[in-house]
């Protein structure tokens, strides 16, 4: 089995993380998978075992975002946010915050989709107001594929 990681991730300064990833589908499809709640619900799940019973994503400027994840053993938590700008098939700007249960400071995210050969190059730039947010985000296990040690980090913070 080959596990080809086409993802790149780098930090930029103190409060940015830039992620790039190639997809073997055109920008139209990748954009749709990022804006259609029925599709988002299928992939934005983080580590194994989590499901997203609530997925609200109103794909228009000012539209609301609300994702709720649950895990049979680890409980549940939610993320809320607002969409700021949408340029069909090429760009999404939104803010989001986790509720753990207290809300983390806003994470400002810009996601771009560009044609890349027959597929798409996605560039996601996260802007976090401070690094505690980044660590808290990791601690939830949502983005990070974190195990127990990261859940403990959450209590440290």
């Amino acid at each position, binding site marked *: 089995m080959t596990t080809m990681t086409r993802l790149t991730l780098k930090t930029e300064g103190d409060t940015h993380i830039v992620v790039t990833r190639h997809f073997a589908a055109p920008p139209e499809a990748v954009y749709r998978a990022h804006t259609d709640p029925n599709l988002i619900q299928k992939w934005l799940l983080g580590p194994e075992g989590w499901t997203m019973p609530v997925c609200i994503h109103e794909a228009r400027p000012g539209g609301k975002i609300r994702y709720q994840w649950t895990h049979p053993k680890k409980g549940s938590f939610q993320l809320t946010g607002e969409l700021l700008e949408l340029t069909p098939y090429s760009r999404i700007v939104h803010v989001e915050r986790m509720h753990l249960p207290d809300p983390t400071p806003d994470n400002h995210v810009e996601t771009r989709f560009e044609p890349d050969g027959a597929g798409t190059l996605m560039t996601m730039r996260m802007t976090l107001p401070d690094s505690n947010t980044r660590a808290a985000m990791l601690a939830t296990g949502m983005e*990070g594929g974190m195990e127990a040690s990261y859940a403990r*980090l959450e209590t440290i913070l």
Partner: protein
Amino acid sequence: MTERFDLDASFAALADPTRRAILARLALGEATVTELAKPFEMTQPAISQHLKVLEQAGLIVQRIDGPKRPRRLAKAGMEAMDQWLAMLRKGLEKNYERLDEVLAAMESHPKGKK
């Protein structure tokens, strides 16, 4: 077990922007507390407190040079930062592997368009 504990300490140490900035500075080479305090609007005792956390996490080490205690980056310091990012990368990759499948399914069942 010890490893796991150290990893936790590393991540907690890295959770603070001042401490990460200190690590970034030390990545350039050894520095004294005075030198480290300079770019921050912080007192030396405050910087020393951060250095203590970094030391306990095994991310930096100090050398005794007369009255000075220059700090430098421990190998673990770099490794911890790399690992932290690797974990994030791993989680995102999992999401995007699922997204690959979603996209493949969309292609075989196009919704109207094209």
